[in-house]
């Protein structure tokens, strides 16, 4: 049945080469853990992506209940965690996954560094990777405020003070992030929500696409 549907579409649109390009590629022996167990270090990039997919999915579902408003943010988080079936699991995925993404990304960076994979011709991909690192940290920072509890408030207070300590532009950066010169409140929360849910994910998708296109173009770096 599925095969027939696939054949029907393929006959008209010739989709086989499209997914072959994506899925069919050689895995060299030196990155295959079946040949050398130590090659598991080459898995960290893929694991980062896997956790990122979980973050995107769980985040999409969390916004079904979450409201970015000072009156209701904490209440809606409390409600979705304690009153909604599997709320603890879905929020837990997003909470723990956020830390896991950073850990996996760091291990991936170490692997690339110690195998020297950033060297010519892959310098551009290293740069894109560093930008992804920054976007991920931004996602972690902006997501931290959203539950609107005391930990979130004071972490954001500290984060905004750090942003404000940038020479010359600090005050401007701080007011643009917080929406107000003094208050960490209604406007801070909506801004952080917009950045967390729309702006940074958009940047992340573009950077990930560039990252993957480049690695497919250049292939994985050779053995040590």
């Amino acid at each position, binding site marked *: 049945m599925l095969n027939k549907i696939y054949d029907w579409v393929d006959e008209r649109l010739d989709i086989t080469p499209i997914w072959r390009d994506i899925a069919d590629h050689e895995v060299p022996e030196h990155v295959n853990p079946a040949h050398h167990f130590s090659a598991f270090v080459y898995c960290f990039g893929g694991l980062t992506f896997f956790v990122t997919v*979980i973050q995107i*999915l*769980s985040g999409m*579902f969390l916004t*079904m*209940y979450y409201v970015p408003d000072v009156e*209701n943010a904490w*209440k*809606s988080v*409390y*409600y*979705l965690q304690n*009153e*909604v*079936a*599997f*709320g603890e*699991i*879905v929020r837990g*995925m997003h909470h723990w996954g956020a830390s896991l993404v950073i850990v996996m990304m760091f291990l991936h960076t170490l692997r690339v560094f110690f195998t020297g994979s950033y060297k010519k011709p892959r310098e551009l991909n290293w740069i894109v990777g560093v930008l992804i690192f920054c976007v991920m940290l931004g996602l972690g920072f902006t997501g931290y405020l959203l539950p609107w509890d005391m930990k979130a408030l004071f972490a954001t207070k500290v984060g905004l003070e750090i942003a404000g300590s940038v020479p010359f532009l600090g005050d401007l950066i701080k007011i643009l992030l917080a929406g107000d010169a003094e208050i960490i409140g209604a406007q801070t929360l909506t801004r952080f929500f917009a950045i967390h849910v729309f702006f940074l994910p958009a940047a992340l998708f573009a950077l990930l696409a560039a990252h993957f296109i480049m690695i497919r173009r250049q292939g994985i770096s050779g053995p040590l």
Partner: protein
Amino acid sequence: MSNNRVTRRQFLNYTLTGVGGFMAAGVLMPMLRFAIDPALQVKAEGDFVQTSTKIADITEEPIKVDFTFEQVDAWYKSDVTEAAWVYKDGDRIIALSPVCKHLGCTVNWNGDSAHPNQFFCACHAGRYEKTGKNIPGTPPLGPLDEYEVSEKDGFLMLGKKIANTLV
């Protein structure tokens, strides 16, 4: 191996698809159950709500009785005011819901001067008789809902909405 109908490639395909499917289900199942929760939540309901209308003041002529109750909408609690059309039919007290059965607008008693002694919905000119029975040829497809009725210290109390019992 020649009489083995599952090839090595097939076996690996099945195993990988199975394990992959299991992992995907483990990730997606909690999220989907989370998303469909509103459809599966059991709501406690059916408490009678006190109104400020005295039983003795109710006549044969329908009057609009407002009543207020605390509505719990997930994390948001608020006082909501709704209304019922209340009249006496002999000794029996009838309370009809003002929600039109066409598309949910609000009906009024004697709302249209051309059709006295009827409930009238201004949205699409739906009409009902005093019992709540929808008048054929107008848009509504069923009679107005009824409220369960009770009494406390001489005052009217309204319960949950039920299907019309007069028609």
